[in-house]
């Protein structure tokens, strides 16, 4: 049968002032009618550009499609006249974009935006178009669709907006739907909703779709084929089961190895060393060679072609050897290039169990409300209860993971502990001294001992200061040492976090994302603090870099005896690095306990849902497990539900949940495991 889409040797370049960017370097694949495929890659891998080039959606100039054919239903889209191509876009091939906040026009009603494509392509009446729009919105599970057509995008939540985006893309019943990271901007529970929705839609409508993502886990039980891209090349293309079980390209293998296994945490993560490729050079050798553990001389001489190796298409000279190892660490270790032996496979973690004796940070009934003011005299009309009554302790030497979805108050908690915000109520003790209510001077002095690592490695470094002055700033502020001893200390710190101390006079923009995050870590360590709040320290990094940074944090903790509050939404990483985990929902802690006991026996329905929404990079396990897909969205923290805050989305909610606010209760065998749920007994 003739494929629906056949891409042959597609080449896309960007001509910029800094030279040519080789974004897509000759990719080929085909897709049958009704087939689904994922394109997986990190930023700069060319995954989006490659797909946008299909329907010429890349900006020209600076972009240019240099070569290739895109045969779609028998014609080459690249040679089509603009007028005809326009008829393909939106009708036969449609797209769903990453950010549901910006991909809808904020000043037009969703009804107008939905009917637009229909009127344009199908030439049907406005009434008919509206009717079809309502059908589509119902199909994607938007409640009360008829009445909401006249609403504007801001009146919907992020998850709802992405549903609307999908409805728009489906309106003309396309043959091919392209999702460009459609769930990346969403919370895990909402991501799970959208993935389920896509599965149903494909069953129902039978269209083909391409799902672009950076997360191998998300697509494991969603698509049939996976193409892995690196530096503008497809390096491996296989059916989803094959790819996960017998990866043949070292990059695919590296991606799989750098994701923590949620069933255990004994093994140290194996990061992909080095940094993302520079796309300014014309590729003449294997683009992954500089970072590859299995590199041989041949890899540096020619670009390996994409070739068939037992069912996979792989672009690697050593594909067969690696495939045969079947992810077995011992067999793989034998294949590692001698020069790279040092960084070889699976090192057991030096996980000294922290003696839990001394409380370092103690939080009592912490509340952080942000007033909502209205009118000319700015009268307070309400408050966003970002953090609403927290009690917990952090022990010396442990890592406490704090997880929850966006808006649950986890970052606010970190800032309130460090007194970067002035808590509305409650007390925070650090080393038995009360911070809340301490004088400004005392708090500033205390900051020597408690530091923060920020999420965004771009925004958190002053672009006008050299790396040396950024890292040494806290020494200067606290008058530690003189100029030369400070410089010495900065150089030490740079070496400690794996940066070349010779770069002390460079500016942040000269470093890659992962290196910048190391700068942020060095800055936090400068004054030898006892306690560090890490606020989503890896969320902005590429998958292959995340493992590097997590390993660094883990090593530093053991070397320097640090205590972390590790804030994140990625549960598998939190499990990996944390001793204990606290789960937050709408400003409250709903469950807190040992990482193992939370993962093995989650006692709160919300924790259960969160855990079941973790993308598992293994198609067998992903399809075996029971997914608890939460309905609806997180309610507004300005107006939290009565009783148990989770009852509006909880499958187990009963009358008492609506009335009474559950308190944290202790469970388990002597170890701390507390949960705030009226029905927790039934999960024990």
């Amino acid at each position: 049968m003739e494929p629906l889409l056949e891409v042959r040797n597609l080449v896309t370049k960007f001509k910029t002032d800094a030279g040519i960017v080789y974004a897509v370097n000759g990719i080929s694949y085909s897709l049958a009618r009704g087939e689904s495929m994922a394109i997986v890659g990190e930023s700069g891998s060319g995954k989006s550009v490659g797909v946008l080039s299909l329907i010429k959606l890349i900006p020209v100039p600076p972009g240019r499609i240099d070569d290739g054919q895109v045969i779609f239903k028998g014609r080459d889209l690249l040679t089509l006249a603009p007028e005809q191509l326009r008829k393909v876009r939106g009708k036969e091939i449609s797209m769903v974009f990453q950010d549901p906040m910006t991909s809808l026009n904020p000043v037009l009603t969703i009804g107008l935006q939905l009917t637009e494509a229909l009127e344009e392509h199908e030439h049907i009446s406005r009434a008919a178009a509206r009717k079809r729009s309502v059908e589509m919105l119902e199909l994607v599970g938007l409640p009360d669709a008829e009445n909401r057509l006249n609403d504007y995008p801001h009146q919907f939540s992020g998850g709802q907006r992405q549903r609307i985006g999908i409805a728009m893309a489906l309106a003309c019943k396309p043959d091919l739907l392209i999702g460009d990271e459609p769930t990346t901007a969403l919370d895990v529970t909402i991501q799970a909703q959208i993935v389920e929705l896509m599965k149903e839609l494909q069953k129902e409508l039978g269209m083909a779709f391409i799902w672009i993502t950076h997360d191998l886990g998300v697509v494991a039980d969603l698509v049939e084929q996976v193409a892995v891209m690196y530096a503008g090349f497809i390096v491996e293309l296989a059916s989803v089961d094959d790819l996960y079980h017998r990866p043949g390209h070292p990059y695919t293998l590296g991606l799989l190895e750098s994701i923590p296994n949620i069933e255990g945490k004994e093994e140290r993560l194996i990061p992909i060393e080095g940094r993302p490729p520079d796309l300014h050079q014309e590729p003449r050798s294997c683009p992954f060679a500089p970072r590859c553990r299995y590199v041989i001389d041949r890899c540096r001489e020619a670009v390996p072609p994409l070739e068939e190796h037992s069912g996979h298409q792989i672009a690697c000279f050593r594909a067969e050897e690696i495939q045969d190892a079947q992810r077995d660490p011992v067999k793989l270790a034998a294949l590692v290039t001698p020069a790279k032996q040092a960084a070889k496979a699976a090192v057991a973690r030096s996980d000294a169990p922290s003696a839990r004796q001394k409380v370092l940070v103690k939080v009592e009934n912490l509340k952080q409300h942000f007033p909502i003011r209205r009118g000319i005299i700015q009268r307070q009309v309400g408050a966003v209860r970002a953090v609403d009554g927290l009690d917990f302790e952090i022990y010396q030497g442990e890592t406490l993971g704090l997880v929850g979805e966006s808006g649950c108050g986890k970052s606010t908690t970190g800032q309130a502990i460090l007194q970067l915000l002035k808590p509305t109520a409650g007390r925070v003790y650090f080393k038995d001294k009360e911070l809340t209510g301490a004088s400004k001077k005392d708090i500033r002095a205390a900051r020597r001992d408690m530091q923060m690592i920020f999420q965004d490695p771009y925004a958190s470094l002053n672009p006008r200061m050299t790396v040396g002055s950024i890292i040494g700033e806290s020494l200067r502020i606290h008058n530690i040492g003189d100029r030369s001893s400070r410089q010495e200390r900065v150089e030490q710190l740079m070496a400690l976090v794996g940066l070349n101390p010779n770069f002390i006079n460079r500016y942040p923009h000269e470093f890659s994302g992962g290196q910048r995050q190391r700068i942020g870590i060095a800055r936090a360590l400068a004054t030898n603090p006892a306690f560090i709040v890490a606020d989503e320290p890896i969320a902005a990094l590429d998958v292959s870099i995340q493992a590097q940074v997590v390993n660094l944090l883990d090593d530093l903790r053991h070397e320097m005896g640090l205590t972390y509050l590790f804030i994140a939404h990625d549960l598998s990483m939190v499990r990996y690095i944390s001793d204990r985990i606290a789960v937050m929902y709408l400003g409250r802690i709903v469950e807190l306990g040992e990482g193992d006991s939370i993962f093995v026996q989650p006692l709160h329905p919300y924790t259960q849902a969160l855990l079941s929404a973790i993308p598992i990079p293994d198609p067998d396990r992903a399809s075996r497990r029971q997914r608890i897909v939460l309905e609806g969205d997180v309610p507004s923290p300005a107006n939290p539900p009565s009783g148990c805050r989770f009852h509006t989305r909880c499958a187990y909610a009963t009358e008492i949940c609506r009335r009474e606010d559950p308190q944290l209760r202790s469970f388990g065998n002597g170890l701390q495991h507390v949960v705030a749920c009226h029905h927790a007994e039934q999960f024990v």
Partner: protein
Amino acid sequence: MSAHSTTVIDDELTSEFGVIKAESPAEKAWQRFRRHPLALTGLILITIILVLTIAAPLIDRYPPSQLALADKFQKPSASHWFGTDRVGRDIWSRTLHGGRVSIVVGVSAALVSTIIGVIFGALAGYYGGWVDGLIMRFTDIVMTFPRVVIILTVATFLGQNILNLILLISLFGWMSTARLVRGQVLSIREEQFVQAVRSLGAGDMTIIFRHIMPNVIAPLLAAVTFAVNEAILLEAGLSFLGIGVPLPTPSWGNMLETARSLDVLQFGVWMWMPPALFILITVLSINFIGDGLRDALDPRHIA
């Protein structure tokens, strides 16, 4: 080449070859400035003008205010390079001496007004709330003052001299800088790196002047060069009205004033052209230097 580009350092490679310690930030800034042809031209021109005006007493050939009625209204010649004015004073000499006054007035008024503007703007933008309200309403009020009329009035009280002129020009010229700085600070204080230094324990003044202000430097430099130009021109305008620099002291402004009469404008081009040209060159040079500085101080800029 692009204005901004990201060059990522290859850690692995460079460390193996043991790179020489990178140049200091100041050296790098000078490298960037040097590669800016207009800025370099501006720097050379302004240096020449400064040397000429500072050395004026040494190289003038007649005292600037020496009357020589016999030589009045002469075209440029070997004895009077730029000619003479209607009372026979040497234009070359007056232009050099006039530059001293105009540049001092222009640069100091611009500096003082910028300092006032930066302080008000930074405080308003950083603290927000009632501090912001108070400062900005005050700014609005000062802005509604008819500047020339007030300077005219006050100058008659305080007396006409250069110091008063500088103070008056700057006291009524800081408002746009304050607004500009406030807007910039308002957005930069929300950046994560500001929160980062706060979490290190930095005080407000460190945050404002060490961390935020360098990020305001680009628009601020543009504002400063405008302020210099404006002050020089305002001095000229006030002198034109007769309340600027008191005669017989020459300034470029009060020399231009002579062009008020039609026959000088038409038939005595040499009398007003030199100060006009010097103002033009000075103003342009300062603009170019400002441009160059903006790029030089931006570490992301690649020349």
